[in-house]
């Protein structure tokens, strides 16, 4: 079965507000994607329509050429994990695993048990009695062990503490190697997770403003440091970010991929060009003000 995802002019409107605007995306299968956006950018809505939790207001979504909405086979192959409220859940993680196995064709109980042990989760305790962090761990264990060909995590790990998140990141990479499949990880913890992503999608105010391989995306931004007038001269015609002063020198972020000529010019002006991180790029592209659509 083919699990390539295609979205064409997908729009979602809630009453009068547009949550998604003309989303066009093609996501080939078996890659780890990072879906990055600020709060309210539309990440959860995008993932909801992909998982058939809701229908888009307009536009088409296909997976392997077929519409996943109300498609018995495709829906069972998409696992969507998010931060759930377990305050009324009396079952234990083990009981939930047993129940999930009935609906997820590739659910691996042995792997789930391994994860329960690795994360140190009490397997018999009712979910509602677990801490918030422990509940998040239970969510990701079920999501990982489902081994769905399209596995989506929508910030379901944000309640976990740093060591637990680290184990989660390791498990994603290990399990991806053993069972290659499409992972979509939605987050705003960019600096912590950027090493996981093969490709990134920046979503801002309901629009895709960037979709690229992580390596290429990072090359889209650069920090320029030097004397103020020289920095300003080099920056002419380029998208500039916030300027930071350190005595006579300044550092500015440029939303620009420097060419050989740019690099030469910078050297002539005594400027230092240093590479930006994915987080820097994300911050500068999604700052208040005009959108920096690429």
């Amino acid at each position, binding site marked *: 079965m083919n699990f390539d995802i295609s979205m064409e002019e997908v729009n979602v409107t809630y009453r009068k507000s547009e949550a998604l605007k003309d989303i066009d995306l093609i996501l080939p299968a078996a890659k780890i994607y990072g879906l990055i956006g600020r709060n309210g950018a539309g990440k*959860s809505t995008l993932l*909801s329509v992909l998982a*058939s*939790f*809701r*229908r888009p207001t307009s536009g088409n979504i296909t997976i392997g050429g077929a519409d996943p909405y*109300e*498609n*018995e086979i495709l*829906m*069972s*192959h*998409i*696992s*969507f994990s*998010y*931060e759930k*409220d377990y305050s009324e859940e009396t079952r234990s993680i083990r009981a939930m695993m047993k*129940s*999930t196995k*009935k*609906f*997820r*064709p590739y659910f691996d109980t042995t792997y789930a048990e391994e994860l329960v042990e690795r994360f140190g989760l009490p397997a018999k305790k009712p979910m509602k009695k677990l801490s918030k962090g422990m509940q998040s761990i239970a969510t990701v264990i079920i999501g990982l062990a489902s081994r*769905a060909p399209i596995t989506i995590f*929508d910030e379901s790990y944000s309640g976990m503490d740093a060591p637990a998140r680290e184990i989660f990141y390791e498990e994603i990479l290990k399990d991806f190697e053993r069972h290659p499949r499409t992972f979509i990880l939605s987050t705003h913890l960019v600096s912590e997770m950027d090493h996981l992503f093969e490709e990134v999608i920046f979503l801002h105010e309901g629009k895709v403003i960037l979709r690229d391989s992580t390596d290429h995306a990072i090359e889209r931004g650069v920090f320029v440091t030097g004397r103020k007038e020289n920095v300003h001269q080099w920056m002419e015609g380029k998208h500039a970010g916030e300027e930071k002063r350190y005595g006579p020198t300044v550092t500015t972020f440029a939303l620009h991929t420097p060419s050989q000529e740019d690099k030469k010019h910078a050297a002539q002006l005594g400027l230092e060009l240093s590479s930006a991180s994915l987080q820097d790029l994300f911050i500068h592209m999604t700052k208040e003000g005009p959108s920096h659509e690429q």
Partner: protein
Amino acid sequence: MNNKGNVAKEISSMHFQWAGWLLGILLMIYAIFKWGILPIYLGGETFFHFAYEPARIFSLVIGIISGGTMFSPFVRLGTTRKSTYAGNIIAAFTITACLAITISIISAAESFLLGSGGFPEPWALAILTLFVHIFINYMAGWMITAGYLRFGGIGMTVFILTALAITIFSDGLLNIDADTSPSFLPDTLAYRGIIAIFAGSVLLAVLIWIGRRTTAHMPIKIK
């Protein structure tokens, strides 16, 4: 993967636990007040008469709970709305049939072993009436919470009023006591029963159709 069957099994396992409690408590109360140290009138000749009303109220309550909690979780697990709804209906059919049959068996055993009271006649119609009646109540309850999840507060108000009208109508229609059956039904008891069950089944079909229309494109909330 038989998702309809899996949904039905998951829901039924919950329903059976709750129904076990209901029947246990009813039997205990019946034993104490009918045969025990405090013989008082319990509103009927047999266990069948005694359990009829509680079974009806119970099915309304578990319908309300099931409509609110046993739809979205299965769609979240990758089951289509259509299969989830079918699974819900199978589970509703199973629990209402089991309740009607169990109540009837207890009542028959009471009559056979203790010789007390008697079974409503004709007995097959009485069992069928109980089944259709509690199924209608279950679906009315189910519709209320499904309406709330689909359309919000206003939807719930409309669905509560609709459910109320349906249950009042079905209470009048499906009455095992012939003396209080609606006057527009024919005089013969069997005819009355058959017509009432037929009308009740049509009502049930309408409720099942409303449930399907309500959930056919229900968005699944994620927070």
